[in-house]
């Protein structure tokens, strides 16, 4: 994955360095910095981790160790419309797995993957705390509650023209 060199925008790199500075280039702020970095770049490619490593004086292996430990951090760019399916217990017992299967089928997409056109990415997450609406699907900032297997098609159709 790191063999494919990607190019970072200069502005973004400057922003990242500024963020590190705001945190006093303190190694203990690694996780806070990574949160901000993911905010800037959308994900955490190897190059970004290298920069963070240099700025905070933390070995890059350790940065990677931290990135791979926390599920919130991702090294893959997300789709324009990231789809997350809540796999909390409440959603699970109300059929979240079936919804996931249906979305996988409809989009021909595996969990953790991004569609080739970069439109959708699919992930599962832990409880979002909207258990009253179970099962819950999030697309971008929008929350869909009480989703049914049949309803999946309808929801996805909203994104047809986008």
């Amino acid at each position, binding site marked *: 994955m790191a063999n494919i060199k990607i190019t970072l925008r200069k502005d973004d790199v400057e922003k990242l360095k500024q963020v590190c500075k705001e945190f006093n280039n303190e*190694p*203990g*702020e*690694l*996780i*806070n910095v*990574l*949160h901000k970095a993911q905010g800037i770049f959308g994900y955490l490619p190897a190059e970004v981790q290298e920069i963070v490593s240099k700025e905070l004086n*933390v070995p890059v292996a350790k940065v990677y*160790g*931290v990135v791979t*430990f*926390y*599920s*919130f*951090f991702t090294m893959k760019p997300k789709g324009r419309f990231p789809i997350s399916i809540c*796999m*909390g*217990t*409440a959603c*699970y*017992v*109300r059929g979240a797995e079936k919804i996931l299967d249906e979305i996988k089928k409809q989009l021909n997409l595996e969990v953790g993957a991004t569609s080739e056109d970069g439109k959708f990415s699919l992930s599962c*997450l*832990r*409880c*979002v*705390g*909207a*258990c*009253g*609406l*179970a099962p*819950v699907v999030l697309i971008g900032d929008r*929350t869909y*509650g009480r989703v049914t297997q049949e309803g999946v098609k309808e929801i996805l159709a909203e994104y047809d023209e986008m």
Partner: protein
Amino acid sequence: MATYKYHILVCGGTGCQASDSAGIIENLKKELEARNLQNDVQVITSGCFGFCEKGPIVKIMPDNTFYVRVTPEDAAIIIEEHIVKGRKVERLLYTDPETQQHISDSKHMGFYQKQLRIALNNCGFIDPENIDEAISRDAYLALGKVLLEMTPQSAIDEIKKSGLRGRGGGGFPTGLKWELASKSPGDEKYVVCNADEGDPGAFMDRSILEGDPHSIIEAMTICGYCIGAHVGLVYIRAEYPLAIHRLKIALDQAREYGLLGDDILGSGFSFDIELRYGAGAFVCGEETALIHSMEGHRGEPTFKPPFPAVSGYLEKPTNVNNVETFACIPIIINKGAEWFASIGSEKSKGTKVFALAGKINNVGLIEVPMGTTLREVIYEIGGGIKGGKEFKAVQTGGPSGGCLTQKHLDTPIDYDNLIAAGSMMGSGGMIVMDEDDCMVSIAKFYLEFTVEESCGKCTPCRVGNKRLHEILDKITKGEGTMEDLDNLKNLSKVIKDTALCGLGQTSPNPVLSTIDNFWDEYVEHVVDKKCRAGVCRSMMRYVIDPEKCVGCTLCARNCPVNAITGERKEAHVIDQSICIKCGACKDKCKFNAIEIK
């Protein structure tokens, strides 16, 4: 200042926001302005009411009218009918599932009747983004009392006397914990609020932070004074944007009022609070893992001792409590330890918030005195099982807890009773299951979670849980043996005995408790290759009842793998060797002729 004649509270919790409560607020304000009523009626975004099943919720004061499942389009009728004409909008009122009667006052709803709200006292009552409302509800009075009228030790003694125990899982006595941290030598100490709520199906901490952030700020400051710390840290899930937003507002407001910062209330005591973000690791709910995470490391637990009270954040004495625990502190100081200790059971004082979810009518956040029975919670507050189905089990304590059954229904809920019953309090998730839930699959579900969330540091959790999950998977696929069941038991026992941290030590609980309570179901899976709940697909057989089949051919035409054959107007047959158990035929059949066996 205008005298408002009505207050309209609209739930602004994450659940209701997901159903566009912001749109409701916007429309309500628009409708009021259109009628020039904006000075008579105040619209307030409040924290969570708890009754998430029925959200979004709109409550009108002073007549306590409780509207459920409101949409932005309903705003006009609420203003026109209720505010202008004084008539309740019947269609938006809650309907009692048993009597089919509309109930307008939440006080009369089963969901609220048995509840006693201490930690959730202000949730759904005040505007969490307005410190004035919090202050008018006694916020920071306890802080003032502690800082100016009590010594650290006397405040600790008060907490000890109240009998408050940690609400995050283990139930360690809070006062004792504070005392340990306070006696630990050192000038630099830390107060940490654990808001990395990770149980799938528990969201009380988030609701408290969203609904009453000042209670946490106040409690952390009190704790700081008691143990001798000047810095507080809130470790909060990054996936809780609303809670973070409100907490930040609350911190700013508290600083502006001088309730946080230097020389608080002229006491000479200084304290401030910073945020640290979790990044999606369940194990960080364990306090040593949480501390490592705050220091920028992988969130791996370390062996205790040393306890954080001796060596915690940056190796300094640190006191970690979770959100709900902190939320109880101010009210204990204000109303006194005796008052708090008078609530609850003998060894578990006060109340506990539960996130009630699953196959139950009233999903939501509830707070009940310790010692309330499961039956009261499920049938009176929860309104019974959804769809009139049969109650099968209730899972408490999340991935660390276990499944309780019919025979536990009258057990009073407290720390010790739950442990004795093979489960635990955990952070308070309570998932109700009915006859359609397969208990082996439920155990598998939790193990999947644990495998996913294990940090990987110790062998029993890293490899052992993986093996437990594999065995359960084998059983649900119909490939299990009786030997597997023995192995399951032994391995679970060893993991409990040898894992490094609380997560690992409790991870086999879902397996052990389902084995204890639903042994027959395991044996059925293994010996009869049968899943009575019809969940384990590979064990299901779709069979056409020749008596009921009219030979319409609809099923055959809808079968994706052409497993169904039969002449028109004659009974059809499913070839089990081809069938992929997708259920399409059963869904399509208009004559209920297809059964799962």
